[in-house]
């Protein structure tokens, strides 16, 4: 039944490309099988389509698989690596091991057991069973042999030392005076030999911590019952002036019937508080989560500290979440000091209002505003009425400590470092450190701090009058020994969490009085010079102002910077002229559109008459938070100024709404954003940005799984958020692109065409990778962008779009990024072309801002150095950097401390170690500092940390801490190669023969699945191996002979080198570095 007519050639082509319907295909098939004419047509057709190409090249890729064997073994390696990652125990450093050690520490010192039912004996107690371990000691069920009653026997870890033991006994004796149903009864306090112990009432039950672990949340009634009992117990203790200091769920015992709560461990936290071993991780017992703000700051505490902790505990029980969450201890402490949590009722509407209010009253950050007594809480929980508010007394009035101001305070502390304010409030919790504070009227003074005669630090009060420093004995002296000023005291002892004030007094009258006989002609000259240069400066300044006002800001800047750079004047500028100069720089740069630089100068002006100008500048720059501060300052100075008040309120609103609009990655993070911004209007517009973090959040998941349209997704996520937050959420908007900046959307209007993932067919083009933006557009975006990751995106785009015509701009961008501390970004630009202009510009920058920006610019300079300078500059810079290296290093430390952000410090220091190995000498790190860094490097999955470890090991090869890190390194485990691997090899070689490392290598070696991975080990073994390696190498040779007979060169080389070295080692010292 052949069809009468032949199909047209184009239909045949369609047929071959599989584009016809099934029916038509059947028809054609039966026609074609009979029709020779069509056969000819088909042979003549040259059909091309996508698939044809894909098939055609299919065989090519098969060709590329000549290394099929290698690939197969690689696949096995990858599988092994994945398996390793899947099975990595999540808590390999967790308690059990520690707990065992602690128990052993105690048990090894007990008197021997008399029978099988007991572990040992202590005084007149038979130790029967381990109940638990903590940071401080170990608790056993024991039997009092005289009274034949069971007791809980707490034994202090002897390694905490004698002082801790004394305090433990003292506190325990004091606590024994408390007699109350809800405080555990202490029967006996004593010590025998190295062991101090206390015997307590043995109660059946579980700690509140365990209970929460199981149920996560308690009902409001239960919380009321438990909290009342705790408060009663506290009231009884407080009457005897005893503070618990560590109220937390782990210290509350709930009886088996759930009805009775008992407080454990009264005052004991304090007893061991001072012990460095305990506090090396920063915190007593490892969790600051229940600390009060004053406790976190190391300030004086009283009974109300316990009440704050009680509030935290109640919050946790009621809501199932912590009021002050944080990923690590420091984040928690920051949160305790800065954040106001949502009220429990905001989280769960079922919680009675009075209860929620009571908790919030307890969580009052200002100790003076907190309920005064535990008995007030007992009463309030009994009657169901919120406690009467405490009235602050004036004795120690500290306005900045008022609730809600902490955010600003910390911010101020950070700014103070850069010379904004005279006084810095820096909160440190680093417990092995104290502070030196310099008080002086003269900002020109510099104070040198010496330890054992060695200069350890220079304090420059014009940038920061407070340094945080290791505890110990120090001397201080003025840097300028000819100075007329006196300093006192000259010797000081810094203790942990202690602050020592050093006062520098200028002998003003003597110095300025005309009748003082000058002791040398130099002094006269200097004085005349100073006044002359001041007049000169004023002249320059006026000229610059005139230029700017004539619309020539660039020339004004040129004039100023030329004049300043070409003379020593910079150092002699008085504060008054200095302000004028800064202001002029700021205005000129602002006029030029160089807002970032202008900002630096405005920052340097601090709080002065220009506040209004600065406020407007920040507002213009959309830095609403900062703008608010400045407006607020003006407003406080003149509260009648309606216009300023309006402006202030306007920017506050903007500041509050800006942040919560960005909720990265979905709901979990949105909560933390809300927590961080307690005043944000809950009914504001929340912008969920799924692309930024590859959309792994709940929001993204719902969209994907349920295949909703964008709009439906927005609604769904909105509902989800509302439900989750227990609060109305008005609108959720998805941004369209990966890591899209809110700045991208004009006037905050959402882009809605596509959802996060890039379009399939068009995403291949070069432009679309960079969203089709031009260099200028990216550049403009970068300037406004604050989020570091998106800054990086911008920079990656810029980098690939850089060409001759815009190189200058790119260069300037590097500088700005360095100033904005986005060093990675700066690197990524510099390393592309390393134009000399960057170097020049950096040099200028460095000179220009030496006085107060040296820390940050120094980093920029270091990075420039790292990017292959021309040799002549390189020399000059090497000297410069060697001179300042230590100061840069310390600056990083200081900045991190000022911001309460040691992670920042660590990250920057690691970057330096990793990328600037030649600089390590200039940092003059001590072994103990390196060891301390090394202790931060134990992270299996962070390549950067390992790179840093390797760089350090090359620098300081013999340090055991580093050897340990290298031995356990990721490179080792995962057999990483390339970039990191080569350095690893170098580092191991630098360490030299080390039995541990060799053993580890050999063990690994024997389990190697493929020859491809062995090279690195072979090189190491060749360099540092010993005779023990030879049999392993021999058996490896055997294996190779079977599978890869041509691949034995390296093995043989390694083997021969080891043998040669072994046989000559008695009389030849072969320098290992020269052999390869």
């Amino acid at each position, binding site marked *: 039944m052949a069809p009468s007519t032949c199909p047209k050639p184009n239909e045949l082509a369609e*047929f*071959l*490309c*599989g*584009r*016809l319907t099934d029916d038509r*295909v059947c028809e054609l*098939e039966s026609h*074609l*099988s009979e029709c020779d004419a069509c*056969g000819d047509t*088909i*042979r003549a057709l040259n059909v091309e389509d*996508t698939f*044809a190409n*894909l*098939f*055609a*090249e*299919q065989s090519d*890729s098969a060709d*590329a*698989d000549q290394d099929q064997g290698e*690939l197969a073994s*690689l*696949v096995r*390696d*990858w*599988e092994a*690596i*994945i398996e390793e*990652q*899947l099975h990595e125990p999540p808590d390999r450093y967790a308690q059990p091991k520690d707990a065992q050690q602690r128990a052993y520490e105690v048990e090894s010192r007990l008197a021997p057991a008399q029978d099988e039912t007991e572990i040992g004996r202590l005084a007149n107690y038979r130790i029967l069973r381990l109940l638990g371990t903590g940071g401080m000691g170990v608790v056993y069920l024991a039997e009092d042999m005289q009274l034949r009653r069971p007791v809980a026997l707490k034994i202090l870890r002897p390694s905490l030392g004698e002082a801790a033991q004394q305090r433990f006994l003292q506190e325990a004796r004091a606590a024994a005076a408390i007699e109350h149903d809800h405080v555990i009864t202490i029967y006996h306090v004593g010590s025998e030999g190295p062991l101090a112990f206390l015997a307590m009432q043995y109660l059946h039950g579980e700690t509140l911590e365990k209970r929460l672990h199981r149920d996560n949340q308690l009902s409001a009634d239960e919380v009321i019952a438990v909290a009342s009992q705790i408060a009663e117990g506290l009231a009884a203790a407080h009457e005897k002036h005893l503070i618990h200091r560590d109220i937390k769920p782990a210290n509350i015992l709930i009886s088996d019937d759930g009805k009775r709560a008992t407080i454990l461990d009264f005052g004991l936290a304090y007893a061991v508080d001072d012990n460095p071993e305990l506090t090396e991780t920063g915190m007593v017992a490892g969790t600051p989560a229940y600390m009060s703000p004053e406790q976190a700051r190391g300030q004086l505490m009283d009974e109300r500290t316990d009440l704050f902790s009680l509030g935290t505990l109640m919050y946790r029980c009621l809501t199932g979440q912590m009021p002050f969450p944080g990923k690590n201890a420091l984040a928690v402490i920051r949160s305790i000091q800065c954040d106001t949590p949502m009220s429990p009722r905001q989280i769960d509407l079922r919680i009675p209002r009075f209860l929620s209010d009571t908790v919030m009253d307890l969580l009052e950050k200002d100790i003076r505003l907190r309920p005064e007594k535990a008995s007030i809480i007992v009463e309030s929980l009994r009657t169901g009425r919120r406690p009467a508010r405490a009235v602050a007394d004036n004795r120690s009035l500290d306005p900045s400590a008022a609730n809600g101001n902490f955010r600003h305070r910390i911010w101020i502390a950070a700014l103070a470092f850069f010379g904004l304010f005279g006084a810095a409030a820096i909160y440190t919790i680093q417990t092995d450190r104290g502070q030196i504070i310099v008080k002086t009227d003269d900002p020109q003074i510099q104070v040198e701090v010496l330890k054992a005669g060695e200069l350890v630090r220079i304090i420059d009060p014009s940038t920061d009058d407070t340094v945080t420093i290791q505890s110990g004995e120090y001397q201080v002296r003025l840097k300028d020994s000819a100075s007329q000023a006196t300093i006192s005291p000259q010797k000081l002892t810094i203790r942990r969490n202690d602050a020592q004030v050093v006062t520098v007094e200028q002998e003003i009258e003597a110095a300025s009085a005309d009748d003082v006989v000058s002791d040398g002609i130099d002094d006269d000259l200097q004085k005349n010079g100073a006044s002359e240069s001041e007049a000169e400066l004023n002249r320059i300044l006026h000229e610059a102002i005139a230029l700017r006002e004539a619309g020539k800001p660039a020339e004004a800047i040129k004039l100023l910077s030329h004049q300043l750079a070409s003379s020593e004047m910079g150092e002699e500028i008085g504060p008054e002229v200095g302000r004028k100069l800064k202001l002029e720089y700021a205005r000129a740069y602002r006029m030029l559109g160089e807002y970032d630089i202008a900002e630096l100068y405005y920052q340097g002006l601090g709080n002065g008459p220009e506040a209004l100008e600065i406020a407007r500048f920040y507002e213009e720059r959309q830095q609403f938070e900062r703008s608010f501060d400045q407006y607020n300052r003006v407003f406080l100075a003149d509260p009648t100024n309606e216009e300023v008040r309006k402006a202030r309120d306007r920017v506050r609103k903007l500041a509050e709404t800006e942040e919560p609009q960005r909720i990265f990655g979905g709901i979990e993070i949105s909560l933390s954003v809300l927590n961080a911004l307690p005043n944000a209007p809950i009914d504001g517009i929340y912008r969920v940005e799924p692309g930024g973090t*590859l959309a*792994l959040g709940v929001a*993204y*998941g719902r*969209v*994907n*799984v349920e*295949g909703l349209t964008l709009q439906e997704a927005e609604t769904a996520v909105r509902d989800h958020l509302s439900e989750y937050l227990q609060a109305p959420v008005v609108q959720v908007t998805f941004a369209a692109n990966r890591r899209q900046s809110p700045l991208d959307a004009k006037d905050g209007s959402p882009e809605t065409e596509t959802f996060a*993932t890039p379009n*399939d*067919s068009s995403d*291949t083009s*070069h432009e679309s*990778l960079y969203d089709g933006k031009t260099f200028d557009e990216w550049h403009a975006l970068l300037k406004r962008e604050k989020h570091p990751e998106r800054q990086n995106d911008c920079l990656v785009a810029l980098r*690939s779009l850089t060409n001759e015509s815009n190189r200058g701009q790119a260069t300037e961008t590097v500088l700005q990024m360095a100033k904005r501390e986005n060093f990675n970004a700066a690197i990524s630009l510099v*390393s592309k072309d390393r134009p000399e202009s960057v170097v020049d510009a950096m040099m200028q920058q460095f000179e220009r801002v030496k006085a107060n920006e040296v820390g940050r610019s120094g980093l920029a300079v270091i990075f420039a150095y790292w*990017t292959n300078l021309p040799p002549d500059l390189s020399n000059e810079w090497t000297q410069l950097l060697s001179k300042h290296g230590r100061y840069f290093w310390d600056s990083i430390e200081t900045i991190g401390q000022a911001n309460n952000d040691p992670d920042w410090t660590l990250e920057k220091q690691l970057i330096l170690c990793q*990328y600037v*190995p030649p600089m390590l000498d200039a940092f003059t790190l001590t072994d103990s500092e390196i060891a301390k860094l090394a202790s931060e490097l134990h992270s299996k*999955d962070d390549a950067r940390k390992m790179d840093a470890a390797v760089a350090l090991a090359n620098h300081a090869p013999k340090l055991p801490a580093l050897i340990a890190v290298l031995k356990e390194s990721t490179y080792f485990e995962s057999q990483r*190669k*390339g*970039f990191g691997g*080569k*350095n690893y090899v*170098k580092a191991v070689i630098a360490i030299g023969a080390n039995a541990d490392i060799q053993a580890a290598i050999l063990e690994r070696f024997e389990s190697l699945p493929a020859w*491809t991975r062995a090279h690195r080990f072979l090189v190491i073994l060749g360099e540092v191996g010993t005779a023990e390696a030879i049999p392993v190498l021999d058996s490896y040779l055997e294996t190779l002979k079977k599978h890869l007979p041509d691949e034995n060169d390296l093995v043989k080389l390694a083997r021969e080198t080891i043998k040669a070295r072994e046989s000559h080692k008695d009389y030849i010292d072969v320098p290992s570095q020269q052999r390869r």
Partner: protein
Amino acid sequence: MTTTATSLLLRLREPTDKTAWARFVQIYGPLIYRWAKRTGLSSDDSADLVQDVLTVLVCKLPTFEYDRQRSFRAWLKTVTMNKWRESIRKKSLPMADSSAGDVAVLPEQQATDYWDLDYKKHLVQQAMDLVQYDFQPATWQALKKYLAAEATADELAAEFGISVWTIYSAKSRLIKRLRDELADLLD
């Protein structure tokens, strides 16, 4: 059929499903590896790259809400390209061993193009494996050779003792099938 079998991805969310991961590695490891080598990375760097990408996937996949394969595909591409850029950047660092930076690496655009092509080929390969049992073995052998342009349809018809029309029809059917399966991915 789907490109990343949905069930496979879902199983990967079970963090310890070893066999699923092994299969995943077998599928995507070689794909990424070959591509990386094509862009000019050394064998070592390519292997490292795969390892890096897989590491990201292991961490993130359990929380990755799976929908259409395109999401995964775009994601995989993003992760891979990011790691690739990282790798290039590291190579460009004037670190201890400068010879590492000498290898000529493709420009990013070309690398991206290659990725898309390789991925598509990979999809086609996967799809072919699935559909081959719809064909008689001899037809399949002939078809493969025909598609790889190793011989003309007439020669192959003679060699395998089938009609030339069988080959044409088989090709038409295969392509139609692939087009149906992979429509939104390839066109």
